[in-house]
């Protein structure tokens, strides 16, 4: 009985994470099209009018993600004749599962708002995000199409190259926080926004975020799906819901990278107005500013997500040799140097971060 209850509660918690996440994924695609639209002086999607709350004014294009999902659901799933059928079907699954499962250890708010508060949190995240490359490799291999194959080779080499820079950036965070548990990493950054790790780990923040762009195959590192040369890359043979799973996994990974950047470098749920009650006195307003922990995390995540879209609208695609050069010859040396600098700074107990 007790175990059954525990099982049901855990399942409810998982649903409470997954459903909002999938909604975020849907509306991130809408935000992307709208934001990039306005950046390119277009309007973006504005046909499927829909209002979030019944009775309110309908927002142009707000129903677009739902319409897209319904459309994809009714599309034919094509399995090419020469493909390896089994691998072809399970590849999207192998991309989707890690993109979702990594959310198990993300702390959403103060006071244990996390599904599994394990002490190897960051290691688990690193393991899960590395799993995604298997799905891409299998998808490209199983398709048995030249475009998919070329894209797979590129994508795999690119993802593993940037994973090294990413791993070194994480080592910097671990040195500063002294824990693998993500809640502890946030707690270690307590203080005003100058106490957060973005300041002592600034180069690592940049490297982590740019590696995140490369890991999720986003522009300007979207060589794996460069439309102008290899049409759509590893998912060129995928259609209908199988394609939708790839698509959703990519966006879920984007949100994951943004969340991790916020948790590790921008103090997660911590309020930037810590200590404001000393200035303005204790009233409902300052209490709100300090206590609104999940709201702060959401704002920080949105900031990074906006950066993802902004970068996509701004930068042209890298050439492949430039991508590899950036990963191996620029990022790895910088992270190595910064780990040494950080080691010295921690040994010297430089305040306010390492005192």
């Amino acid at each position: 009985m007790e175990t059954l209850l525990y099982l049901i509660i855990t399942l409810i918690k998982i649903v409470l994470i997954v459903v909002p996440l999938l909604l975020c994924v849907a509306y991130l695609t809408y935000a992307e099209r709208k934001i990039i639209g306005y950046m390119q002086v277009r309007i973006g999607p504005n046909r499927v009018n829909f209002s979030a709350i019944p009775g309110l004014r309908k927002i142009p294009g707000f129903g677009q993600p739902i319409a897209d999902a319904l459309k994809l659901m009714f599309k034919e799933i094509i399995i090419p004749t020469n493909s390896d059928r089994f691998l072809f079907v399970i590849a999207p699954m192998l991309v989707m599962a890690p993109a979702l499962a990594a959310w198990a250890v993300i702390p959403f708010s103060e006071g244990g708002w996390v599904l599994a508060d394990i002490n190897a949190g960051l290691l688990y995240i690193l393991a899960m995000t590395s799993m995604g490359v298997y799905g891409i490799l299998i998808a490209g291999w199983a398709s048995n199409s030249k475009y998919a194959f070329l894209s797979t080779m590129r994508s795999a080499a690119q993802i593993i190259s940037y994973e090294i820079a990413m791993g070194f950036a994480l080592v910097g965070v671990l040195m500063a926080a002294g824990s693998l548990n993500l809640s502890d990493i946030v707690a270690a950054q307590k203080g005003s926004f100058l106490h957060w790790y973005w300041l002592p780990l600034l180069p690592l923040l940049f490297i982590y975020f740019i590696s995140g762009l490369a890991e999720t195959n986003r522009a300007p590192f979207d060589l794996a799906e460069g439309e102008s040369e290899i049409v759509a890359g590893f998912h060129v043979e995928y259609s209908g819901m199988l394609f939708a799973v790839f698509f959703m996994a990519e966006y879920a990974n984007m949100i994951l990278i943004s969340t991790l950047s916020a948790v590790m470098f921008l103090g997660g749920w911590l309020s930037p107005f810590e200590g404001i009650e000393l200035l303005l006195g204790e009233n409902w307003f300052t209490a709100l500013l300090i206590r609104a922990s999940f709201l702060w995390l959401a704002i920080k995540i949105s900031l990074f997500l906006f950066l993802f879209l902004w970068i996509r609208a701004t930068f042209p695609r890298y050439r492949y040799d430039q991508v590899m050069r950036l990963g191996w010859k620029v990022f790895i040396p910088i992270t190595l140097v910064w780990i040494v600098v950080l080691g010295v700074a921690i040994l010297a107990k430089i305040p306010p971060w390492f005192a």
Partner: protein
Amino acid sequence: MLENYFPILLFIIIGLAIGLIMPILGFFLGTRQPDPEKNSPYECGFEAFEDARMKFDVRYYLIAILFIIFDLEIAFLFPWAVVFKDIGLFGFVAMMIFLAILVIGFAYEWKKGALEWE
């Protein structure tokens, strides 16, 4: 201790299930009109004239090998970084010697041109 990991196992299973249920839904709801042209591998309208699993550049292997070395390095650095504040100067010097050896190897492969793509 291990029971902390049970929700994670459950989450992975649910992740796999979502990745499975959505295509199954698509298989049932979508139309199904196979035709030999539609099911042939896409090659810009040409007929695919050979197997797509062709030879590829040996550099990809090289990158994979280098990745294993550096990833192991990160695996070594992780536990060190967690306890870094407790082990102090001794731990710092020990890891610096380890990193120096790695950097020598890195400089060698750089000079050898293993990181060049042209």
